[in-house]
């Protein structure tokens, strides 16, 4: 019983550390733990999850298409910061965000699908 309680505390502490990293976007907060090098966005049921993602500058974001239907990931800005080729089932696209800013993107095949990456 005691062991289980401790492990839940341990998990909670881990989550807190991760959240701190996410919102502060700085490695120094995470007490010697390096920031995550990559972050995942999943495509399921014609939607991006998470729909809004916050990352530190320098983070590589990878999108994975888990639908039976091909999708793309295209930023809405002009000129486009990033634009994937079409991704069939289980195919991936990665982009490294070097500059801070808010990047809105969509699937150019199914434009109702939109998402945002906020780079701090």
């Amino acid at each position, binding site marked *: 019983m005691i062991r289980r309680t401790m492990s839940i505390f341990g998990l909670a502490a881990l989550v807190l550390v991760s959240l701190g990293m996410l919102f502060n976007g700085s490695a120094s907060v995470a007490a010697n733990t390096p920031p995550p090098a990559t972050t995942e966005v999943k495509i399921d*049921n014609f939607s991006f999850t998470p729909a809004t993602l916050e990352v530190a500058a320098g983070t590589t974001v990878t999108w994975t298409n888990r*639908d*039976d239907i091909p999708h*793309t990931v295209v930023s809405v800005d002009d000129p486009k910061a990033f634009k994937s080729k*079409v991704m069939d089932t289980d195919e991936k696209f990665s982009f490294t965000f070097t500059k801070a800013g808010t990047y809105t993107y969509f699937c150019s095949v199914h*434009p109702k699908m*939109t998402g945002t990456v906020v780079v701090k």
Partner: protein
Amino acid sequence: MGEKPKDEILHDHNNDGVDRRGFLKCMAWAGTGALCVMQGGVLKSYSMSGIKELDAQKMAGELSFVQISDSHMGFNKPANPDVAGTLKAAIDKINGLATPPEFMLHTGDISHLSKPEEFDTVDQILKGASAKDVFYVPGEHDVLNDDGQQYRERYGKGTKGAGWYSFDKKGVHFIGLVNVLNLKAGGLGTLGHEQLEWMEDDVAHLKSSTPIVVFAHIPLWSVYPEWGWGTEDSAQALAYLKKFGSVTVLNGHIHQTMQKIEGNVTFHTAASTSFPQPQPGKADSPGPMKVPADQLRSLLGITDVNYVRGQHALAVVDSTLG
């Protein structure tokens, strides 16, 4: 012979020849195949089972053509691992029609991933059809990665802009539109200013008695915007067609048959030859609908269209592959 019209107009509030009951009855039959004919302002509907018995005059008319759609060559997931087989079955169905169609319309998503070999396979299968001429419009799956350049090289010779065009057959004016390019985040299908201007010019010189058939991939009416099943600027296109007595709009994209009649305009979507999609809002997403293998062909199909001079609307008949 002997099949009597099942419906007559009881309440025609919009003065469009359709009452709610008649319309719903046509809708109910659409899934299994129905024929709706406007004759003298009266909507008459027949079940597919009675069609062989119908007066050949009513069915044949001056012009007969077939619409196929969404062959998605290259798709190989469980919803249908053999899209080449079901496309061949569609061609067999077409070759078996009592009135051989003069040509075919393919309303897009010829391929699944815009790969050359996918287009090649479809071209090869369609060569087996009795009707040799095929008129295409692109679906979003045909213009992946290159904004439709390959599509236009293959299918768009002599077309304008992104691949739109018109032609005449036996007094009927056909307009093929492209609404799958330059889509905007959060939006629907788009025709765009240049295409709309072209269309306005294209129909300006036509007599209002000319029957019009408009075909495009994404529906030109608002079927279910939440899933992107509509076209942003279709109202402008339809405004150019207001003067015409008979307008038939044929679309694909939603992989199921649906029909709506609004004034002189009949909207119709064709079944796919590859895989079914859910009814609007009846699933988490519009992704392929997996059904038992023995039911698949009952949800795929072709659309047979007949024009009889002097009738208000073209007769649109859906039939399933199995």
